[in-house]
């Protein structure tokens, strides 16, 4: 019944690092035969192997514990995961409801597609991205083992908040990467396939919506701003808040990115002329370009308001903290 011993040793060594396997294989066999004490009956082999315990546990005793996300980060991971899952779940639910309420095909088909495709898919994506971010943080943390310094303890906030800074910042990072990435993807695809049938008008347009030359300028800049934003957030995490220098950098970045967005989307040739022509025909409105530009202008105004409000709050907090 040597077969049992072979199987046992294999089940232990397959869980170990390649370079340890041969040596531990030899060691373990020697130990087992010692424990058998010359009695190699099946019964005794079974007794000895049972005594040695589960191969998984024995193998784990040979290894240092390793974590994808270690105990130090785990609580933060769970808090972030909860928020990210809720945000993604709600967005997926709303977009799914819209699709269900405006069905074009079989309702059952759409419903099952929505539940298994979009909701489950987006929840898995949310889980995956969060886990990836924390996995990287854990890896960096284990590699760097930053030394604890009393000076780097966070300031106690003037207004006590329930969420902690780390959780908040990591959620911001994940959302900015995911939605920034989605926006870039939409801009790069830059393609519509419209097919509208009114009573009187038949309208079809297939092709680009936004000016490609402008997009080739905007997309790299936008991607760069996402990267810079997240580098700033990483520093914020490390320092436990905004230092004055970091906040100045953040303010400059935000104003620059709002400026770039405004400059690009206020160009009169931002929308492809063919698309405007198609819109003119379909809507019967010769001034459709004005309406489109008005939408862009509104978006830009909202962005500037958001930037102003955020910066005002941040600077207000910062200056208050100093006093």
């Amino acid at each position, binding site marked *: 019944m040597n077969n049992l011993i072979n199987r046992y040793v294999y089940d232990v060594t397959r869980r170990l690092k390649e370079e340890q396997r041969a040596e*531990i294989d*030899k*060691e*373990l066999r*020697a*130990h087992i*035969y*010692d*424990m058998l004490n010359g009695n190699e009956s099946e019964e005794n082999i079974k007794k000895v192997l049972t*005594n*040695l*315990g589960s191969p998984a*546990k*024995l193998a784990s*005793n*040979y290894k240092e514990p390793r974590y994808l996300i270690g105990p130090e980060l785990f609580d933060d991971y769970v808090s972030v995961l909860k928020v990210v899952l809720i945000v993604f779940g709600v967005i997926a639910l709303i977009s799914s409801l819209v699709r269900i309420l405006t069905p074009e095909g079989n309702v059952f088909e759409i419903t099952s597609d929505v539940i298994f495709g979009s909701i489950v898919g987006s929840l898995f994506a949310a889980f995956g991205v969060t886990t990836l971010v924390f996995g990287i943080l854990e890896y960096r943390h284990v590699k760097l083992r930053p030394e604890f310094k009393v000076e780097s303890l966070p300031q106690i906030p003037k207004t006590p908040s329930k969420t902690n800074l780390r959780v908040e910042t990591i959620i911001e990072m994940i959302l900015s990467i995911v939605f920034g990435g989605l926006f870039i993807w939409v801009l790069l695809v830059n393609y519509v396939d419209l097919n509208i049938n009114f009573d009187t008008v038949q309208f079809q347009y297939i092709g680009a919506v936004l000016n490609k030359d402008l997009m080739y300028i905007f997309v790299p800049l936008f991607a760069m701003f996402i990267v810079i934003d997240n580098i700033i957030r990483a520093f914020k995490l490390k320092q436990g808040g905004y230092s004055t220098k970091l906040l100045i950098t953040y303010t400059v970045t935000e104003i620059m990115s709002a400026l770039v967005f405004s400059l690009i989307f206020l160009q009169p040739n931002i929308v492809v002329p063919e698309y405007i022509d198609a819109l003119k025909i379909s809507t019967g409105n010769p001034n459709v370009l004005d309406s489109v530009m008005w939408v862009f202008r509104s978006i830009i105004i909202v962005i500037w308001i958001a930037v102003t409000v955020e910066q005002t709050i941040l600077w207000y907090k910062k200056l208050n903290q100093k006093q």
Partner: protein
Amino acid sequence: MTYSIIEIRGDHMDQKAIIANLLVELKRGTQTLAVLSLFKDKQYGYSLLQALEERDIPLEAGTLYPMLRRLETQGILTSEWDTEESRPRKFYSLSVFGQEAYLSLKEAYFKMHKDLMALLKEDTHE
């Protein structure tokens, strides 16, 4: 005797299991010391197991073998394969550094034992 359920981090743990865990932790630190004390001359895994059992300090084989390997990578033990007999056997002995480590541990344990005994003797809650 009845055991109530205590909630720890959402897990349900029996009080009996908690005590068993505490005992395991209490023993863990002394296991290495017990093993090192047996190295007057070279030893192999099973001889150590038997020696410990004779002295009523049973250590699981699944704990001892990985421990020997760890002590070897730390340079506390050295090893050699004896291929003279019918089956190869791995013999371990204490290195010079291991001897030094053992003496430090032993000294620390004696002090700990003395201090703890004094502490435990003055306890008033029987």
